[in-house]
């Protein structure tokens, strides 16, 4: 029982931090908890949340994805270019491309014996280049009705928030399948999983492909939010997704971490950025504070975990 409590302590800590942020936010923007506000915020945060979920999936297998930003931009570009010819088809196409890019990353990690950080570093050039080739200049177009429904709500429903909830529920179910359990098994002790007869390669490739789906969804969301595509817009998502995952308690060494932590981490990063804008501080200071807060949050967590372990 003690184990259960200490395990949730981390989530509770993040939750408390989030509530504090929300209270501060409410002070600046009393309309925070109105449907309109929720729609705007969820539209703004959806991409980071989904990108972070993708990063977490890769990190659970013991990897890391430095090509996340370019793949996100690739999905965004594909969707924006095709959306006028049918939104559903465009979305499917964008997701397929992103999943394929993820699977290629995964195959190189699984078969080539190259460390994930190096594979995805090289792949970031590759996918970045493909995106630029597909969409050399910012462009493409997403139908206005969709953009409006996404950013302003559809019959009072916060579409992005609903989308996030649906994805999270699907993940919760997916995690309970044999594949989901195997993902954690491979990440926690790859050799043990291999010796125990798991097809570790296939599982890893599957994990990277699944991450590609999350990232593809994030890219589609970003395209709908902005109404068009931009090949270079994905870059900050690579590092922010890592930051959100690490903040949420996902280990660099694989096998440890839960999506709820990652989502909280992404929300905290997003809210904090907005909050800094509210304070009227020069946007130039934002980056500084973001960095400081990232260090402080992770240092605090590491030290707290250590204390618990030695106690």
């Amino acid at each position: 029982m003690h184990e259960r409590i200490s395990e949730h302590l981390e989530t509770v800590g993040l939750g408390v931090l989030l509530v504090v942020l929300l209270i501060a936010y409410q002070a600046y923007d009393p309309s925070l908890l109105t449907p309109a506000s929720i729609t705007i915020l969820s539209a703004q945060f959806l991409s980071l949340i989904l990108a972070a979920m993708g990063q977490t999936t890769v990190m659970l297998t013991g990897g890391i994805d430095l090509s996340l930003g370019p793949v996100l931009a690739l999905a965004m570009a594909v969707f924006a270019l095709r959306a006028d010819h049918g939104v559903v088809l465009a979305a499917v196409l964008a997701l397929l491309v992103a999943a394929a890019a993820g699977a290629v990353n995964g195959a190189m990690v699984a078969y080539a014996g190259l460390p994930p950080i190096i594979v995805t570093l090289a792949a970031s050039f590759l996918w970045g280049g493909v995106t630029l080739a597909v969409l050399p200049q910012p462009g493409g177009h997403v139908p206005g009705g969709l953009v409006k429904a996404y950013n302003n709500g559809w019959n009072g429903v916060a579409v992005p928030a609903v989308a996030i909830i649906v994805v999270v529920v699907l993940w919760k179910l997916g995690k309970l399948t044999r594949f989901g359990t195997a993902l954690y098994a491979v990440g926690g002790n790859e050799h043990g999983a291999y010796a125990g007869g798991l097809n570790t390669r296939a599982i890893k490739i599957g994990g990277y492909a699944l991450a590609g789906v999350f990232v593809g969804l994030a890219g589609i969301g970003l395209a709908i939010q902005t109404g068009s595509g931009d090949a270079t817009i994905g870059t900050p998502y690579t590092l922010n997704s890592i930051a959100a995952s690490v903040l949420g308690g996902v280990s660099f060494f694989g096998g440890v971490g839960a999506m709820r932590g990652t989502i909280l981490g992404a929300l905290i990063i997003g809210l904090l950025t907005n909050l800094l804008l509210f304070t009227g501080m020069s946007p130039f200071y934002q980056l500084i504070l973001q960095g400081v807060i990232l260090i402080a949050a992770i240092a605090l967590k590491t030290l707290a975990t250590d204390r618990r372990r030695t106690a």
Partner: protein
Amino acid sequence: MLSVEGVCKSFAGNRVLHEVTFDVRAGEVLALVGENGAGKSTVLSLITGLQTPDSGRIVLDGEPVRAWSPQRARSAGIGSVHQELSLNPHQTVAENIFLGAWPTRGGLVLGRNLAEHARPLLERVGLDVDPRTKAGRLPLGQQQLVELAKALVSRPRLLILDEATSALDDDQVQAVFRVVRELREANSSVIMVSHRMAELFAMSDRLTVLRDGQVTATRERAETDHDDIVRLMIGRELSNLFPDRPAATEAGPRLVARGLTVPGACHGVDLELAPGRIIGLGGLQGQGQREVLRALGGLARHAGTVELDGRPCRSRSPRDAIRRGIAYVPEDRKIEGVHVAQSVRANLALPNLRTLAPASRLATVARGAENRLVDELIRRLRVKTSSPAQQVRRLSGGNQQKVALAKWLPTRPGVLLLAEPTRGIDVGTKREIYHLLRELADGGMAVLVTSGDTMELVGLCDEVAVMYEGTVVDRLSGPDLTEERLVRASVTGSVAHA
């Protein structure tokens, strides 16, 4: 049922197995014995599909196996438990047990459902733990039993136990034996590897002996004895395993610990280490012996007073301890004891770089002096390595342990701390290490050893402090230092009166 026929295997030009042939019959327990580096683990990894032989074949039920892999081996009914744990510490016991074959309900792997399926298996291996505990939270012995339960999931026709009892206490070993007997009665087969000779003789039907990658003999248990097997293993008679003890010296203590306490591990431990004496720390597994050593070696935060040559000394880091002449040879050899991925040379030079690269040379390493030092240590401890450039990973366990110990000698430590100095090491190397330790003590070192092997403590030490639940409950020396009294004190946790 399964036979290994003329199998050869080399790694990077080193021949590990040569024309190895033996078989396991249905319903028998076969013991595979040999010194470290004799090739036992390699043979087993060929059977379990982790490696493929260079030549020769594995024949299962009369058919040579093809495209062998861990997956295939497992589905062909071969289960295995290894010394090195394959558990995922972050998943639950139940999730670990059913690795890859998780029972589902409605397509989902549900914790409660999994736990229900796991309980009978845990019962079978005599383990009373909640199947939903994270595997990493269990003590080593219990983890090993989880491994056994995991191997039983696929109802193996052949179970491989590779040092599967190395971290178990007596009750747990009995639980393993019970499982082995059940399997034998069900006409399944078992291959056992263990350094505990008594266990092999208690359980096996036949013993196959490996030496230097070749099978030297296979004997029926009834037709052989301990000495015969040891002779086959090392190719010679092994006499005086333990060195003679010198007459007690009158030297004053070098290191005195009073009320040594490591929160959660040990409390109020008093110890006196004197030059020329080998002190042992005995007791059951995990009674705080390890933390006493780690505290003295600067690796664990502690309270209490420690005096070195009459002056107070508190080691906050291994560097502190080393500067004061306290050297520590850790229990986790491959993690802390040596740098497995570095060369023998780099390992041996590392603690001695202050002398090899002095400030007077602008901290540039003197290659000549380094090579001389390394050659000298390799020769003195008879480290079997193809060259000083050889990776320590490629050495046998015994030779790795020699490196872990040898690297400290040039620092001329006054106090030498060793945790489980011979765990998983063959008897020939054990003998060498015992004699070396005595030699070092005779040269003026104060030595402190922990060990789970009572025979070792009794044979080697001048005095043994027995620990129970974190504190010293008895001290045995001279005629009182017998295996019987040591075991009694370990188990009861009270002073044993003869």
